[in-house]
């Protein structure tokens, strides 16, 4: 699991996609990944269409392809697994540069690879054009339970603070010569994790006091949402119809 999680993927630009309402972008993204996931792997042409469409959206978002490619490295472990498949899979084989590889295995590898890459590209575009708080609020508009949204919002707010506390603890330990190589030496690291939990929990209690002090009784105040223009929904519709249509055609033809 990469350590790059807190590095927000948001790219500050002024593009049409950036300006689009987050709930609309979420719906479009979901439509796209579902279509990609259900498309039969033999319909290679369909994946070509998807890739092209994603490229077009990337242009409209002013996101460079290199940016997406770098972020795609996150799916590298599964790419590696996919590359293994033709060698460990069963079924009839063909010879490729002197090695017997499974035909079905090659198809299986292709399936995993193309869907992982395209699906991740959609996610990367979404996060590159939408700020974190807006994504979470957008999920709330799409009827994800309010308590879920509130908890997630708090998590994002305090993530940097908690991570910083953790880093400071590690730095302090390293400064005193701590350089563990084996699991039997990890007591200090684990203890610092325990200490971090206690500190975080106590902060949570203080935050609760601050909330109660300002009249909180259990329900977060309702937020006002920006109205989504019909033109934005049109764009979403076009994208979804395009993707879903391609997927359905592929399903029927295969």
């Amino acid at each position, binding site marked *: 699991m990469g350590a790059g999680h807190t590095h927000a993927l948001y790219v500050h630009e002024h593009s049409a996609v950036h300006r689009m309402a987050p709930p609309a972008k979420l719906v479009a993204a979901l439509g796209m990944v579902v279509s990609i996931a259900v498309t039969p792997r033999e319909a290679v042409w369909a994946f070509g269409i998807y890739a092209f469409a994603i490229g077009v959206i990337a242009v409209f978002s002013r996101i460079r392809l290199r940016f997406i490619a770098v972020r795609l490295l996150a799916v590298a472990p599964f790419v590696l697994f996919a590359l293994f498949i033709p060698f460990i899979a069963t079924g009839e084989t063909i010879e490729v540069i002197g090695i017997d590889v499974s035909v079905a295995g090659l198809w299986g590898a292709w399936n995993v690879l193309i869907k992982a890459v395209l699906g991740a590209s959609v996610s990367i575009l979404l996060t590159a054009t939408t700020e974190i*708080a807006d994504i979470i609020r957008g999920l709330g508009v799409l009827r994800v339970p309010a308590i879920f949204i509130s908890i997630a919002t708090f998590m994002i707010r305090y993530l*940097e603070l908690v991570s910083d506390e953790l880093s400071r603890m590690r730095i302090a330990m390293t400064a005193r010569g701590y350089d563990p190589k084996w699991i039997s030496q990890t007591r200090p690291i684990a203890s610092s994790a325990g200490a971090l939990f206690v500190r975080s929990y106590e902060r949570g209690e203080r*935050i609760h006091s601050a909330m*109660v*002090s*300002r*009249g909180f009784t259990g329900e977060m*105040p309702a937020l006002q949402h920006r109205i989504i223009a019909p033109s934005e929904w049109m764009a979403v519709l076009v994208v979804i119809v395009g993707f879903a249509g391609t997927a359905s055609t592929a399903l029927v033809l295969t």
Partner: protein
Amino acid sequence: MSASVHIHGVEFAYPDGKKALNGVDLEIGPGERVAVLGPNGAGKTTLALHLNGILEPSGGSITVGGLPVVETNYAEIRRMVGLVFQDPNDQLFMPSVREDVGFGPANLGISGEELAKRVDTALDIVGGGEFADRPPHHLSGGEKRRAALATVLSMTPDVLVFDEPSSGLDPAGRRDLIETLAGLPMTQLIITHDLPLALELCDRSVIMNQGRVVADDATRGLLRNDDLLAANSLELPYGFDHV
């Protein structure tokens, strides 16, 4: 608008039995600014948390502006008493400062234009227009303190309670804070280790130690009393000879 604060014989013990307040008596008139001094562990923060019902006393009573601080009145008490916490991070929990400042009034049922007006007014008082739309973790220490103050000002309180407001501030930030506080009409209770700040802002100070008020006098008089200061583990800043 400002209100009086009456604290009579307040006692409080933590769940593990430790007695934090041993009979605190304190009367503060409307519009007064009183500094609360004393060593760590004296019960200053514990007392502050009683003023808006976060903690409930095991003995004694508290009244704010004539209203007893009991559960049935908590909603109004929490509008009247604005508590500014020691760590502004604990108080800035919304995705943006603007939403944080709006949190209090929203809980009071205020919305729409009225809410926006309240938020803008509070931000103006602390000079927060420049950082209002930023997420709180992108603010500097001084900006966070100002934002935290705005979050309680938007509820138009009658009493303000500050817990170590100047700690961690650079001289410029500290100066801004003193000027802001000096310009606010509400009754103010300022818990602080910053004795010069207490002298500058508060005509009157109380010293707390071991859960009770051990001295209550004009600030100048208290700070001149070397024996009293020493007995309560207080010390004037080096070179601060003339009070």
